């Protein structure tokens, strides 16, 4: 418990304090071997899918472009391993849909070095050349948003960015890959920050890190440049500290006007993982072929942070870390906002920040009994957007979806899960809100 009148770490109003389970935060990043087959989807980002430029039976080298970007809001895809293209076609993806993917049979005993690269002197490049180079790395938002990095960094000429916020909050329970990146790849991170500042024109950067990662804060502080343009700020450990709205509010005291982007208040937000990979890959001229992610949860015997090639099937990944036989719920991302998958044949993609395996014992043996709303009001006390989830839930039960959007700001909800987390009646509020939004979208389209 904190004492009153003592300066606290920066924070936002409301939110929750779930059990954090950050045990893997002290484990160094380790590398996993190649799976015998890698399934590489052509669309791992928001925007148009990449266009495949290899054919079945063709040999590909680790790092080689196997699909090119289709226009500006698109990203290329690189071969994660050396091998032979075995198939090109529809394969299951994490969201349950079938997506175009390239299946590569990996050559056994192949090395981990990147075979195709194009090193460049980034200081010699201007903004436009830098943006093109960033697109060629294939980096999307690695925190899970998967928005192409070069698009996010392309600031329109009429917009002035005064501050870049670097999101190192990592507020989701269990996930610690951002933590390890900040500790182990601090120089990559700072190089990435400088590149992003140059491209976006942001004169200063604030790195926000939750105060349950003091080693990350110390590592970054030790590496900061002397000119003061980049600072690091401790944030209170509270969920959802790492959401765009909340981290900007915590660090800068500014609210993003409802329905607008951070750029409207002169702010650009990037995830530490995205910037660390940018700082690592751009000077080397490599494409993103692997990423660091957290594998954890009670269903995993060897939890930790692993470097996993893009396209690694989850079944192989879980075998490598010793999944327990009772693990029945596998979540991509964190437990608060991640999604469960229906098949272990889906691959790791650029946006996969964590793979959590929960066993039956953890997922409550019987679904807790749902009671009517007793109007305790706790959901209002935790909603970081100051919505009224109680009222929204009552309306959802009556299928008053239009009223939810028009009178109770349904569209401001970003599904952080705080209301469902605290609800003593175990009403599936977030699920109801998702359904309401989907129905409203369909009605609007019709």
């Amino acid at each position, binding site marked *: 418990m904190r004492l009153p009148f003592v300066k606290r770490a920066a924070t936002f109003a409301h939110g929750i304090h*779930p*059990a954090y389970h950050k045990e893997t935060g002290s484990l160094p990043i380790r590398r996993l071997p190649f799976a015998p087959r890698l399934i590489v989807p052509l669309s791992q980002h928001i925007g148009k899918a990449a266009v495949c430029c290899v054919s079945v039976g063709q040999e590909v080298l680790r790092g080689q472009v196997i699909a090119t970007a289709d226009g500006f809001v698109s990203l290329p895809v690189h071969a994660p391993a050396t091998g032979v293209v075995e198939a090109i076609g529809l394969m299951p993806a994490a969201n349950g849909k079938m997506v175009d993917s390239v299946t590569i049979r990996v050559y056994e005993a192949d090395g981990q070095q990147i075979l195709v690269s194009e090193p460049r002197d980034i200081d010699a490049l201007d903004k436009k050349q830098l943006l093109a180079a960033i697109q060629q790395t294939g980096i999307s938002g690695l925190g899970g948003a998967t928005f192409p990095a070069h698009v996010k960094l392309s600031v329109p000429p009429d917009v002035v960015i005064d501050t870049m916020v670097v999101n190192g909050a990592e507020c989701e*329970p269990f996930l610690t890959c951002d933590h390890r990146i900040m500790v182990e790849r601090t120089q990559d991170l700072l190089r990435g920050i400088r590149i992003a500042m140059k491209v976006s024109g942001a004169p200063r950067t604030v790195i926000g890190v939750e105060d349950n990662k003091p080693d990350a804060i110390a590592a970054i502080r030790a590496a900061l440049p002397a000119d003061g343009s980049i600072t690091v700020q401790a944030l209170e450990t509270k969920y959802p500290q790492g959401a765009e*709205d909340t981290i900007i*509010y915590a660090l*800068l*005291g*500014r*609210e993003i*006007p*409802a329905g*607008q982007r951070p750029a409207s208040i002169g702010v650009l937000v990037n995830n530490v993982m995205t910037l660390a990979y940018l700082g690592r890959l751009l000077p080397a001229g490599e494409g993103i072929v692997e990423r660091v992610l957290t594998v954890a949860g009670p269903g995993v015997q060897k939890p930790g942070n692993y470097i996993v090639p893009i396209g690694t099937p989850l079944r192989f990944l879980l075998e490598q870390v010793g999944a327990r036989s009772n*693990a*029945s*719920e*596998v*979540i991509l991302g964190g*437990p*608060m*906002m*991640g*999604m*469960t998958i*229906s*098949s*272990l044949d889906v691959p790791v993609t650029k946006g996969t920040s964590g793979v*959590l395996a*929960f066993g039956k014992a953890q*997922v409550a043996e019987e679904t*807790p009994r749902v*009671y*009517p*709303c*007793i*109007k*305790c*009001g706790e959901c*209002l*006390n935790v909603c*970081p*957007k100051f*919505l*009224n989830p*109680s*009222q929204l839930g009552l309306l959802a039960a009556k299928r008053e979806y239009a009223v939810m959007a028009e009178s*109770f*700001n349904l569209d*401001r909800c970003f*599904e952080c*899960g705080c209301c*469902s*987390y*605290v*609800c*003593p*009646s*175990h009403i*599936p509020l*977030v*699920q109801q809100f998702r359904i309401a939004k989907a129905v409203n979208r369909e009605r609007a389209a019709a």
Partner: protein
Amino acid sequence: MSMELRTSPHQISDRSVERIMLHVVLALLPISAFSVWQYGLSALALLFTVTATCLFTERLLNRAAGQASTLNDWSATITGILLALTLPPAFPLWMGVVAGFVAIAIGKALFGGLGHNVFNPALIGRAFVQAAFPVAITTWVPPFAPQRFTEFIPSTLTLPFMLPNDVSAWIASASVDGFTGATPLARWKFEHFVYPLQDMLTGSAGASSGETSAVLILLCGLYLAVRKFMDWRIPVAVIGSAALVAWSFHYYDAIAFPPVHLVLLSGGLMLGALFMATDMATSPVTPLGVWIYGAVIGVVTVMIRYFGGLTEGVMYAILLGNALTPFIDQYTQPRVFGTRQQGAKK
């Protein structure tokens, strides 16, 4: 392996309706025990009878509606205990059965059960018997009567549909000096007698079973507030607004209006503020709303006492607050993030 598909969040807290309600029951136990200590067998029988009636009614109506039993959510138990605590200790048991039945059947089940009721069920039960049995509900006996553990107060065992048996002989044999059969508020209203502060804090004044010891009620409420099973803002608003109004009147005319402690510590204000106004289902959910709701209850309570015909008033003030709750919620919706005027900080 078989895969389970669920939507996020996949991690939830250990809060549950059963847990909240069970802790309210636990917090009511010391108050109940104290009332039995004060009033003996009759208070115990009343507590038991009213609570059992509430549980029985709830189960009966579950069955009639073809629902699974809702007894295990503990809410009917809370209604029963609270209702018993607001009744005079000498209240005939058969009237207690009526009160318990009305509380659950009309106050709760008729609206659709837990969470759907507009009014606090215990207070609906009490309001009904107050109208139906005006004499019985204002018949007070002294606490700590020496024979309280060996014999019932005569009115307790009144036969169903009969008028209460006379208690004056029992009060006389209790030989408690100066007991007039009136509560501190009534004695002020009709005699301008100021009860000593200490007696009111510790429960030596005559009143309903569970309303007498302000200290005990505050401690039990504090437990719930600290464990976050109760919204502390409501009792603070109720007691604060009542104190402010009472102080203003007393300051204006110290002869006509009673001192603040008499207002706060009598007539079930403490029990009402901490355990009945805070009923989640019938109080507002918005942060501003709970303050308004609490203030309305506090002010209306004092107004009823000063200018109405009743000597008390907490019950009607809370019922009025309950009725206003949907209205208060509607007009105090929180300001959504991102709709503030820009540029306030840094």
